[in-house]
């Protein structure tokens, strides 16, 4: 299995990506389908996860460089939307803080333990960043990865009709909300809708990730003072 892990992962991802390009339904999300198939495969053939993880490690090594590469779209977007940078920064800060303030106590009320709360806290930001934050909070990066992907799928699928339904009519606000709540998958959906949507959404995606890295440890530590 060791030497098959990488080619199998690539095969899954690129075939499901093809499928998604032909039928862009939210449920055909390539990451979701790849995860489901690979997990099924591992269970069916009774392969230990550690073997698969060793074989597919080169992909995981590239996660951190990919986060660094986000500097490029951040720089390009910041140039374009310079005038609105302050209100955007303010809005993203409010968004990230409210996500943390809501998600942590809600999970606690419903019986989540410490590691699950730490895994859920950064759920609204892009996967590689969220996993890094989870790790520093003492959570489970794999659980975070799954949660973040589901958040992205839900947000991308229902985000725009939801926003219109609650009276957010402005294109820039819609784009920002998609990026802030549903990270890369929301952004991908926003780009399909329009260029302007995409620009705001990817700016929110990156700013929220940075803000989350700062705010999550603070708010998490604050809650841990009160929640047993």
């Amino acid at each position, binding site marked *: 299995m060791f030497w098959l892990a990488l080619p199998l*992962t*690539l095969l899954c*991802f690129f075939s499901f990506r093809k499928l998604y390009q032909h039928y862009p339904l939210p449920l055909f999300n390539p*990451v979701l389908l790849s*995860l489901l198939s*690979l*997990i099924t495969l591992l269970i069916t053939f009774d392969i230990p*996860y550690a073997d698969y*993880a060793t074989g597919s*490690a080169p*992909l*995981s090594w*590239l996660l951190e*460089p*990919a*986060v*660094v*590469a986000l*500097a*490029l779209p951040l*720089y390009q977007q910041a140039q374009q939307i310079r*005038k609105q940078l302050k209100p*955007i920064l303010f*809005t993203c800060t409010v*968004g990230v803080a*409210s996500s943390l303030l809501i*998600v942590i106590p809600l*999970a606690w009320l*419903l*019986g*989540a333990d410490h590691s*699950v709360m730490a895994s*859920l806290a950064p*759920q*609204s930001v892009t996967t*590689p*960043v969220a*996993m890094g934050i989870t790790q*520093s909070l003492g959570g489970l*990066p*794999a*659980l975070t*990865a*799954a*949660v973040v992907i*589901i*958040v992205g799928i*839900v947000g991308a699928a229902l985000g725009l009709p*939801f*926003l219109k339904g609650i009276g*957010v009519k402005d294109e*820039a*606000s819609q784009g920002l*909300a*998609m990026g*802030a*709540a549903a990270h890369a998958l929301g952004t991908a959906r926003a780009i399909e809708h329009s260029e302007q949507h995409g620009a705001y959404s990817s700016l*929110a995606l990156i700013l929220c990730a940075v803000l989350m*890295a700062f705010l999550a*440890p603070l708010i998490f530590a604050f809650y841990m003072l009160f929640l047993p």
Partner: protein
Amino acid sequence: MFSIVRAFAIILLALVGGKAVAYLLPFNFPASIIGMLVLFIGFNTGVVKVHWVQPGAHYLLKYMALLFIPIGVGLINYFDLVIAQWPALLASITFGTFIVMAIVGHVFQRINPRD
């Protein structure tokens, strides 16, 4: 080929810088985010040119989704946890997402300076 190697070299250099800073910080902070800020500062000061990084960054960003599949498959080790704590997971995914979306959308719609 040279342009891709150069792009990856710059990205890795920024990441190493980020790791060094993260190591010196008195608290836990994702080194990759610091690396991103290092590169962002590099662009803004003109030390790093956008077209030096573009060829490598393009591929990393385009196929970013692929990169977290191996770690996501690790969920296989936490099935018991998911089954035991599904109400918290479900509530936080749904409520968290829509509340954040509503707040961000409405706040920006109110304060956005339109011309």
